């Protein structure tokens, strides 16, 4: 080893560090990493108490269920042993963190223009040809490199948008619509979803959507380079890589 080799800046040329995630995004991400898992797993235990879904205002054992769910095993539920009261205690306490986190994130992200700047797709990105191109690139597991990797691509924008602006708010609202006291406080809410059992079905479907999102999200993180991806969600700093062929 000699000094000259060490001083050579060669490896730095291939990568450049940029700030990709703001502090607010990072805090919310990791609060959610815990909260959403608790909500999903305690929710599956609550589902075990009556694993049938209905449409309309009423629905019980003698009524037609549009979906009969399986009994979720202990390794997927909180607590792992059957306890509806325990699952409710977790679910209804973490629901406050979940809902408060969502509201604060949405307000802050609109205020600092994170939504407008980073999450909203541009007109060009919404063109079918552009979306189709992104789908093909994803299917080939060819991810953006260089400058493009510092921004969200179209499929990311669309899936994050669907989760942040549709699934998560719907989970909070349908959750509230299931509460008997809320039916007295805001009767329009339960009616907006087509009745209490419809709200419960939509709640489950949105939870399933979030579960699917998490699976795909984790696969994408693993494929795109887990150390850099997870590191950037912790520190905010992301190492941009250029394609080998460009060097």
């Amino acid at each position, binding site marked *: 080893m000699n000094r000259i080799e060490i001083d050579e800046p060669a490896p730095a040329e291939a990568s450049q560090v940029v700030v990709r995630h703001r502090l607010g995004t990072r805090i919310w991400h990791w609060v959610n990493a815990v909260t959403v898992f*608790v909500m999903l797993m305690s929710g599956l235990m609550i589902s075990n108490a009556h694993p049938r879904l209905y449409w309309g205002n*009423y629905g019980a054992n003698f009524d037609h269920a549009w979906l009969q769910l399986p009994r979720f095993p202990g390794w997927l539920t909180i607590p*792992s042993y059957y306890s509806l*009261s325990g699952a*409710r205690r977790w679910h209804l306490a973490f629901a406050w963190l979940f809902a408060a986190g969502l509201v604060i994130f949405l307000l802050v992200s609109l205020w600092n223009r994170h939504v407008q700047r980073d999450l909203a797709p541009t007109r060009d990105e919404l063109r079918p040809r552009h979306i189709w191109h992104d789908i093909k690139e994803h299917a080939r597991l060819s991810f953006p490199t260089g400058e493009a990797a510092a921004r969200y691509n179209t499929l990311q924008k669309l899936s994050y948008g669907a989760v942040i602006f549709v699934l998560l708010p719907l989970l909070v609202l349908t959750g509230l619509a299931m509460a008997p006291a*809320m039916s*007295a406080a805001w009767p329009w809410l339960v009616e907006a979803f087509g009745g209490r*059992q419809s709200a419960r079905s939509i709640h489950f479907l949105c939870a399933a959507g979030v579960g699917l999102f998490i699976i795909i999200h984790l696969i994408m993180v693993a494929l795109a380079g887990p150390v850099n991806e997870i590191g950037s969600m912790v520190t905010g700093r992301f190492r941009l890589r250029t394609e080998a062929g460009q060097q």
Partner: protein
Amino acid sequence: MISRRKFIAAGTSGLLVAGCDRLDRSETFRGILRSSEGLTMKAQRLITSRDALAPEYRAADMSPIFRSNGTRLPNTNEYARHLNENFANWRINVDGLVARPLSIPIQKLRSLPHRTQITRHDCVEGWSAIGKWHGVPLATILGAAELSTRAKYIVFHCADRFGDRQYYESIDLIDAFHPQTILAWAMNDRLLPVPNGAPLRLRVERQLGYKQAKYIQRIEAVESLAGVYGGRGGYWEDTNDYEWYAGI
């Protein structure tokens, strides 16, 4: 052979679940989670006016079959005797912090002015059923008994037993004086069937099913729930750690 990735995934999931179970058994952690019950109650009460009504439905919206839950037939000799007599000698005692303790025969109660409401019953398990109830507003009875200003809760003592434990429930005065809170003696235009709480049950429409005490024999006004049975305000609260406030 188990792959390393699989091993890590299974190990993580196992640790996560085991960790949550340990937390769930910790009384301190339960206490932290339970503090959200008070927060939920305060928040719901804040946005709900005192007399805001639970939705009432049309006859066409009713469940074809209103299922029962919990006790379907109280298993005491005393209840069997009352059932045999068609509840002719069933009385409802009203006592505790009242100026005029009452003992009301069920026939007398059925002759008082009543309220009819078609409402949705939401079970803690997740199902709902819509039924029609006829009953005397609880406020009427509490007025007749001259409730003391010291009273903070109304306790309902029931005739059914789970093992050797008596079923009971309790509500605070906001729900006790709510216009839809009735002592129901009929369901779907018939006298209350046994599985649904004959001859008298509570309807407290802004809370979940387990608050709707069935087979009511005694109504007691108290200042604190601490000295009543297990002290948590209800059978399910005492035995299975359900929340006393069941508005969610």
